[in-house]
C-alpha cells in the first residue's frame, strides 16, 4: 500500500511538473521573436533630415522608405514611386506614386506627403540639419494629382535619383509631424517601412516592432532590438556570447576571433568607405608637393591591406573604391619606392629626422595600427612621425574643421551614393566643412561643371579628371577601401549584407 501510495504520489508530482512545464512552454510559443542587433554609433536623432551618419542608415532603412529604392545590389528600383520620367528638357521629373501605402500611424501616403517631405527638407526645418544641401537642386515639388508629383529642378542634378533613394529624401507623414511636433518626431518618427519605432533611448538603443500594414509583405521577426555598443571589445563579446545576433562595424583586429568561433559567421562586402590620410597642404613641409609625393611613395599600401587588414579591404589610387562612379581603373597610385621617396625628400630639402605629426580619432582601433605602420614606413625614409589622438567629436568638429591638424591627418569617408561627386566635392572643393586646406580653381571648376549635367559620360570624364589631378598634386595619400564587415550568428538566416551599411532586417529569420 505504501509503495503504491508513493508511486501515486510520484505520478501526481510528475504530472503536476509536466503541466507546469507545459504552462511555461505555452507562452514561449506565442512569444515574439526578437532579433538583437548591435551597432557602434547612436545616430542621436532619428529624423532623416537631421543626420548624415551611417548609423542612422542601419536603423532608418527599416522605418522609412523613399520614392526610389536601392537595395543590397546598389541598383536603383521603384520604391514608393512606381516610375519616373524626365520632361521639359530635363527640368521636370514626374513621379507616379504607389497606391495603397500607409504610414505607421494610419495616415495615407500620397502626393501631399511627398510635397510636405520636400518642403520641409528644403525649408526652415531642413536648414537646421545636414541633409538639405544634398537636395538644393530641387526648386519645388508640385502636386499634379493624388498619386502624381512633379519635381521642378533648379539646376541639373545627375546624382538626384540616387540621392532620392536615401537619407534626407525619406518620405515623412505630414499630419503626424504637425500633431506631435518636430522634437517628438526626432525621438519617435513614423514612416512607411516594414518596422515601426517602439522606443528610442539615446545612447542605449532603439526597439522596433513589425508593422502589420506594410504594403510590401511582412517582416519575419516581430521585434528588432538595436543596441548601441561603442566599445569594440564589448560588442564582439556580446556577439560571441549570443547576446546579439547581428553585430555591425566589426573592427579588423577582431576578424580572426570571429572566424574561429563556430557559432558566428563573418560576412564581408565591399563598402563605400575609403580611408586615406590627407596632407596639410597649407602649412609645414607637406605644403611642398614633392614631400607629399615622397610620403605617398614611402608607404606600402598593398602590404598594409594584405598583412594587417587580412585582405578585408582593397588598395585605392584615389579617394574612391572600384564600385564608385568616377573611378578610373587606369589611374595607378604611386608605386611603393622608398629610394625614390628619399631622393624626393632630399630634393625638397627635408632633413633626415624631421618630425611630423599624424592626427587621428582615438576610438579607431584599426586605424591606430595602420597609423603605426605608416609611421614605421616613414621612419625608413627619415621622417619621424608623432601620432596624436583626439576624441572623435573634437577631431572632426575642431581639429579638422578649424585646420588644426599636423602634417598628416586621418580621413575616412563613406560616400553612400557610390558616386565620386559626393566624396570629391567634400574633399577638394574650396570652403567645404571638412576641407580646411585645399583651394584650387581648377578643382572647383571641374567639380562645379559636372554638377550641371545629367550626361553620365561627361560627368565620368570630369570626375576622373578630378581624381587624376588630386593624384598628380598628391593632395592625399589614398590608402584603402574598407569592406563592410558584419558578424552574424549562425541562428540568423536571410540576412543580406548591405554594402552601404543600410542593413535591412525585414527578411531575417531566426532558427
Amino acid at each position: 500500500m505504501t509503495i503504491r501510495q508513493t508511486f501515486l504520489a510520484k505520478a501526481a508530482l510528475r504530472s503536476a511538473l509536466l503541466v507546469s512545464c507545459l504552462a511555461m512552454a505555452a507562452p514561449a510559443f506565442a512569444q515574439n521573436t526578437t532579433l538583437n542587433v548591435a551597432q557602434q554609433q547612436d545616430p542621436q536623432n532619428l529624423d532623416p533630415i537631421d543626420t548624415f551618419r551611417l548609423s542612422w542608415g542601419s536603423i532608418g532603412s527599416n522605418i522609412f522608405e523613399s520614392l526610389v529604392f536601392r537595395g543590397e545590389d546598389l541598383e536603383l528600383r521603384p520604391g514608393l514611386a512606381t516610375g519616373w520620367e524626365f520632361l521639359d528638357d530635363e527640368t521636370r521629373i514626374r513621379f507616379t506614386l504607389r497606391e495603397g501605402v500607409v504610414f505607421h500611424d494610419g495616415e495615407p501616403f500620397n502626393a501631399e506627403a511627398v510635397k510636405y517631405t520636400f518642403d520641409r527638407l528644403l525649408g526652415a526645418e531642413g536648414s537646421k540639419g545636414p541633409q538639405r544641401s544634398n537636395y538644393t537642386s530641387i526648386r519645388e515639388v508640385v502636386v499634379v494629382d493624388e498619386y502624381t508629383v512633379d519635381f521642378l529642378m533648379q539646376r541639373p542634378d545627375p546624382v538626384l535619383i540616387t540621392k532620392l533613394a536615401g537619407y534626407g529624401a525619406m518620405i515623412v507623414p505630414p499630419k503626424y509631424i504637425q500633431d506631435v511636433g518636430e522634437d517628438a518626431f526626432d525621438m519617435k518618427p513614423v514612416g512607411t517601412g516594414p518596422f515601426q519605432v517602439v522606443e528610442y533611448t539615446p545612447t542605449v538603443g532603439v526597439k522596433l516592432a513589425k508593422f502589420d500594414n506594410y504594403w510590401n509583405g511582412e517582416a519575419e521577426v516581430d521585434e528588432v532590438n538595436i543596441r548601441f555598443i561603442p566599445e569594440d571589445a564589448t560588442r564582439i563579446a556580446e556577439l560571441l556570447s549570443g547576446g546579439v545576433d547581428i553585430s555591425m562595424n566589426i573592427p579588423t583586429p577582431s576578424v580572426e576571433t570571429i572566424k574561429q568561433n563556430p557559432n558566428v559567421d563573418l560576412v564581408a562586402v565591399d563598402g563605400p568607405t575609403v580611408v586615406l590620410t590627407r596632407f596639410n597642404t597649407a602649412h609645414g613641409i607637406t605644403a611642398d608637393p614633392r614631400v607629399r609625393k615622397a610620403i605617398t611613395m614611402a608607404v606600402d599600401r598593398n602590404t598594409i591591406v594584405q598583412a594587417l587588414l587580412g585582405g578585408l579591404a582593397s588598395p585605392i589610387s584615389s579617394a574612391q573604391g572600384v564600385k564608385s562612379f568616377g573611378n578610373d581603373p587606369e589611374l595607378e597610385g604611386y608605386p611603393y619606392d622608398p629610394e625614390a621617396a628619399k631622393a624626393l625628400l632630399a630634393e625638397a630639402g627635408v632633413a633626415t629626422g624631421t618630425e611630423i605629426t599624424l592626427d587621428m580619432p582615438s576610438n579607431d582601433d584599426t586605424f591606430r595600427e595602420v597609423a603605426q605602420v605608416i609611421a614605421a614606413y616613414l621612419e625608413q625614409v627619415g621622417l619621424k612621425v608623432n601620432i596624436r589622438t583626439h576624441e572623435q567629436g573634437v577631431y572632426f568638429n575642431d581639429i579638422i574643421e578649424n585646420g588644426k591638424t599636423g602634417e598628416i591627418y586621418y580621413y575616412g569617408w563613406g560616400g553612400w551614393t557610390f558616386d565620386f561627386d559626393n566624396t570629391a566635392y567634400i574633399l577638394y572643393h574650396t570652403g567645404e566643412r571638412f576641407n580646411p586646406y585645399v583651394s584650387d580653381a581648377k578643382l572647383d571648376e571641374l567639380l562645379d561643371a559636372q554638377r550641371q549635367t545629367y550626361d553620365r559620360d561627361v560627368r565620368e570624364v570630369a570626375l576622373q579628371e578630378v581624381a587624376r589631378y588630386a593624384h598628380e598634386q598628391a593632395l592625399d595619400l589614398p590608402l584603402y577601401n574598407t569592406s563592410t564587415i558584419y558578424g552574424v550568428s549562425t541562428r540568423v538566416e536571410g540576412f543580406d549584407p548591405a554594402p552601404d551599411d543600410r542593413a535591412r532586417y525585414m527578411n531575417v529569420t531566426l532558427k
Partner: protein
Amino acid sequence: MTDTLQNPRLSRFTRFRQSRFAKFEFIAGSALTSMLALLVLFADILFPGGGTAVNLLERLSEPFQSGAHLLGTDPLGRDILARIVHGGRISLTVGLLSALGSVTLGTVIGLYAGYYRGFLDSFVMRFADVQLALPFILLAITVIAIVGPGIDRIIILMIVSQWVQYARLVRGSVLSLRQREFVQAAVSYGLPNRKIIFRHILPNAMGPLIILLTLNVANNILLESSLTFLGLGADPQTPSWGGMLSEGRSYIQTAWWITVFPGIAIMLTVLGLNLLGDWLRDELDPLGKTR
C-alpha cells in the same frame, strides 16, 4: 633605528613566523624590483630599437617558438619582450617621478603646516580634504580632454592630486613630534625654525613616509597603465604596459600573449614593490604604530 626592536606583546612563535616572512618579503621584493630596475636601465643595450620595429611579415608570432621573439609578437610584428622592457621604462619613470614629486611637495607643505599651525594649516588641510574627495580617474579624464594626452601631463596630474596624502601624514607626525622634549630643547636653544623642521623633525617622520612612498610608486604604475589603457596616457607608438594591454584587447581570444605578458609584468612589478614596502614597514615600525 636600524636594530629591530622586539615587540614584547607578540609571542615567540609569531615573531619567528614574522621574521621568516619578513625575510621572504625582503628577498622576493628586492629581487623583483632590482630585476626590473636592471632591465629598464639596460633596455637599450638588451633591446636596441626600442621595440618599435614594425615587421608585418612576423605579425602575431606565437611565444616560445623562436629565440628572436621569445614572448611572441604583436599585430604589427613587434617583439613583445622588447616592448615590455621598454614599456617598463615608462611605467617606472611615471611611478618614481610622480611619487617623488608628490612626496617632496607634500612633505614640505605638511612640515610647515604642522609646525606653524594657524591659518596656513587650516587652509592647506581644508584644501587637502577637497582634493581627496576628487576621484583621480575623473580628474584625469577631464583635464586630459582639455589639454590633450601625454605622459608628462599624467605625472603632473598625479603629483597635483597625491601630495595631499603625504601632507596629511607628515602633518600628523609633526603635531606629535613638536611636543617632544628634543624639539622643545631645540626651540629653547634658539635654533631657527627651518633648522628645527628639517634637522630634528623631518628625520623622525621619515619612516611612514618611505613606506607610503613604495606603495605609492606601485599604485601609480597601475594608474598609468589604466590611463594609457583608456587612451589618456602614452601615445600609441611609445611602448607602455597599459598601451599594450589596450592594443591586445581585441586579439585576446586569438593571441593571448599580447595582453598576458604585459599583464604579468605589471603584476610582478607591483607585487615586488608592495613586498618591499611591507618589509620596510616592519623594519621601520616594528611596534606596529602605523598599522
